């Protein structure tokens, strides 16, 4: 709503290999839905908006999904512009997806703005007893080496799904310089009147 528009906006990206469950995690967190049938790449989701309060201050989270551009590793530089945080997701029941994380960290560290917060998530915790192949400690150790937060979640069972988002926002808002770095400057030209209904402002 109108008042939400004025909330400080935080841009948070999801990255990681295909099939790790990035979209499932996003949809579970934002809409509390889970579709076990849908295993195909995500279509039609540009970004999700979620309001989240931390320490009594409300923030507007803009959560961006990879739109399938991770399949052939063709995410563009522009995807990373202005991101305050990057959530890296792998599948605990899939060893190659964990092994790929080193390259995803490298991509995030080179493309995101300096100081952006990274956060590692091991998804599909519901498979822990049946088909876990990546131990919790391995994920923890990888996160420690990159100096970032870590948790395991299950988009399917809802376990822990809020934690990565709350934790990363908590870390972002502790760095006021990060919020300042991405705020739009006086030099930005608005092509559309802020109050407008989408019509171009031609005189």
């Amino acid at each position, binding site marked *: *709503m109108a008042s*939400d528009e004025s909330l400080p906006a935080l841009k948070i990206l999801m990255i990681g290999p295909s099939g790790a469950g990035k979209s499932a995690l996003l949809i579970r967190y*934002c*809409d509390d839905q889970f579709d076990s049938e849908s295993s195909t*790449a995500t*279509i*039609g*989701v*540009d*970004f*999700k*908006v*979620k*309001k*989240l*309060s*931390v*320490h*009594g201050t*409300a923030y507007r989270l803009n959560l961006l999904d990879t*739109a*399938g*551009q991770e*399949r*052939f590793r*063709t995410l*563009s*530089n*522009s*995807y990373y*512009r202005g991101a305050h945080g990057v959530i890296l997701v792998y599948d605990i029941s899939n060893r190659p997806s964990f092994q790929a994380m080193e390259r995803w960290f490298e991509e995030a560290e*080179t*493309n995101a703005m300096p100081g952006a917060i990274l956060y590692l998530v091991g998804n599909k915790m519901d498979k822990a007893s049946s088909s876990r192949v990546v131990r919790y400690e391995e994920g923890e150790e990888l996160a420690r080496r990159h100096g970032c937060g870590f948790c395991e979640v299950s988009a399917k069972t809802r376990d822990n799904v*809020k934690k990565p988002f*709350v*934790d990363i926002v*908590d870390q972002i808002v502790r760095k006021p310089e990060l919020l300042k770095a991405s705020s*739009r*400057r*006086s*030099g*930005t*030209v*608005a*092509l*559309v009147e802020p109050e407008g209904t*989408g019509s*171009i*402002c*031609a*005189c």
Partner: protein
Amino acid sequence: MESLSETQWDVLIEGTGLRQSLLALALSRSGKKILHVDQNGYYGDAEAAFSLQEADEWVEQVKGDSPTGTFRNASLWKPDEEASKEERKLSFSRAYTLTLSPQIIYTRSQLLTQLVSSKVYRQLEFQAVGNWWIYTLPEAEAVSESDQKAILKRLPNGREDIFEDESIENRAKRSLMKFLKFVVNYEEHPEIWQPHAESSLSDFLASQFQLSPYLQTLIAALTLSLDKPEETSVGYALPRIERHLTSIGVFGPGFGAVLPKWGGGAEISQVACRAGAVGGGSYVLGTGIKTVQEKGEDQPIEVELSNGETVKTKYLARGSESKDDTTPSPRALSKIIAVVSSPFASLFESSVEGSPLAAVSVVVFPPNTLTTDTIPHTHPVYIMVHSSETGECPAGQCVLYATTLYSPTSKALLDAALQALLNSAKDIGDAKLLYTLSYEQQGPASHPSLDLAFNDQVLEDVAQEWDAIMGEGVDPATFMQFEDRPGMNDDDNEGLASAN
């Protein structure tokens, strides 16, 4: 890697340059199965943007002569590491975004209208192209040949500016105002200009409006024409002058053109490709097209990709350069991208109240202002100065994009123009060049890619191809008209703050 050959594609788009990326955007809600490939390992093709390291790799690819490629003869220059002081050094590779597409976008371009109607403008940050400067000897001052010292003079920004300009005498001002009044409505007065459409702009301004050579130069600068003023035709120039003048003030006072942050056209093509991906398109870089076999009507086209896979598609949208074309391109431009150790603050200072801080300034060097014994200066030189606000370089530096028509001495001419700019901008002290990348770009004479301003012809080409792909019955009015994607849910989250 997943297999691409299992899918029956509706459209295969070759190349992620601006035109093909806009096509992907136009098709992003069509429901068609789209495969979008680029032989390069990066987005943007001839409109790409590079970090320093990526620029090094690009130079390796296009350093040789090439009669038919888009780019040729690229070379790099950097000062000796030892010689440069700590505070005036190049920063790290990723601190730079050097773009091959610094074309300014006039505010009345349909591109902006379409970026808004297709909703992708939300992913772009537009910045103002502010002051225009001309390197000139002020007309009023009579100085002997030997003392001639050209200076940078700001082009008047509208009528009030002209009235206040003391270097233009009153009678000349009246003539100038008369011309400006005519040109913003030139289409309604064909009797004035059509008989002269093929004549040169200079002759037309002199004979029909009694404008002095100095004022002719000011007017010619607004065309961004790369030709000599005496070879720039009235029919070419008037629409461009009109566009310049009527674009000022559309999105705010004091500017008539914009540029997306982070590399202009390069950023638009990336954002357009993401829209294509959001719509379900598949993106593969580092993969070009090897062979194409048309099996006849109603049969899919078989395309062999450079990764060895063969895919089938109903429609193939080829890249801009036809690979079989062996005729050398008729027009070539000489270009230099330079990084300088100065913010050039005075070039961006606003003269108009309420205008946004400009991130780009245009500097025009009319013919004969840079002539030396060894370098003839017959064609205009343009330098687009990008401040660090563009995100293309670190604070305290600028990126300069210099262009002129190619000639055997054009590179030396661009060097002279860069040096003249460094010498004449008054606030820079001993600003130094930190990096220059020179190259040549070629193409058909009137090709949009050789224009210094975004040319709406690109959009007409995209619309035509979109129309051909969509087939009969598609409403042309729906081109690039999209609703916002769902996902903007207003759900409030219960405050679940972690303690402390």
